[in-house]
């Protein structure tokens, strides 16, 4: 039994975010929004390795136009448990260098912001909900992982 799809979105408050959230609601996908402008909240959430978080995602969506994905991925990817979480980076445009950068950071994929979120999220949710086996991310595994203390001591985001 794999974990159900639950999405954490890191972005700023924009109409696009509301469209994305509404689409996820329409397709029955649990999700949370972490404001990209709330540096303290981001620090707390990621530097604590999600161990104390009430919501542990099985998929993360980072808005590259609103946050610095390389800093978040630098916290997630060295961690023995959190590195399993697929990270989709989305943003305006389809610049080849940006696409290459995203994959080189270890993200799952780059997704250009669609003109119509509702239409784009239909195939998105069909794929990730119906066909993809997701990692098991348990808060207790995160807490007990050996590198948890090392993670907490990393350079602040």
């Amino acid at each position: 039994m794999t974990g159900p799809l639950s999405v954490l979105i890191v972005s700023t408050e924009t109409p696009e975010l509301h469209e994305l959230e509404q689409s996820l609601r329409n397709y029955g996908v649990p999700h949370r929004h972490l404001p990209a402008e709330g540096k303290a909240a981001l620090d707390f959430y990621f530097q604590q390795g999600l161990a104390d978080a009430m919501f542990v995602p099985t998929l993360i969506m980072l808005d590259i136009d609103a946050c610095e994905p390389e800093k978040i991925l630098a916290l997630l990817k060295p961690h023995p448990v959190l590195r399993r979480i697929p990270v989709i980076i989305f943003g305006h445009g389809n610049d080849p260098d940006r696409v290459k950068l995203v994959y080189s950071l270890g993200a799952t994929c780059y997704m250009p912001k669609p003109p119509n979120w509702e239409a784009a999220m239909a195939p998105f949710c069909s794929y990730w909900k119906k066909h993809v086996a997701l990692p098991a991310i348990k808060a207790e595994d995160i807490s007990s992982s050996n590198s948890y203390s090392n993670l907490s001591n990393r350079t602040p985001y």
Partner: protein
Amino acid sequence: MRNRPVIAVVDDDEDDLFLIQEAFKVCLKEEKVVIASSGMDLLSRLETLPILPSFLLLDLNMPLMSGFEVLATLRADPRYNLMPVLIFSTSNEQPDIDRAYELGANSYVKKPSSFNDYKSVVEDLCNFWLRIASTPSSRIYQ
């Protein structure tokens, strides 16, 4: 001259390869499907391709070189480390799923048992990886 986009598949099971190819015929437009029957076969075929595949469907349980070994090899090779690798396996074992993500798989797709389910899976993964997501090779033909 523009290169046709490529999708790569590696699986040692002939029946599974047949089903995958038939399912791709239903949903692909211009993409070429490159088939390999083992990890070593895949690595040699990749050498001959003019562009990076848009994605690779990778079976896990294969003799000589397992899917995990193929994945680790690809991730250690700067020529292929950006290529999306989708594990395509019948294994529902959580340790296999977790290990695949730890090794850098881009997703883990459950291999179906019937042809109708194959068509559904292949259609959805093509819709996502070829039309919603952008991949490093897609810049060549978009």
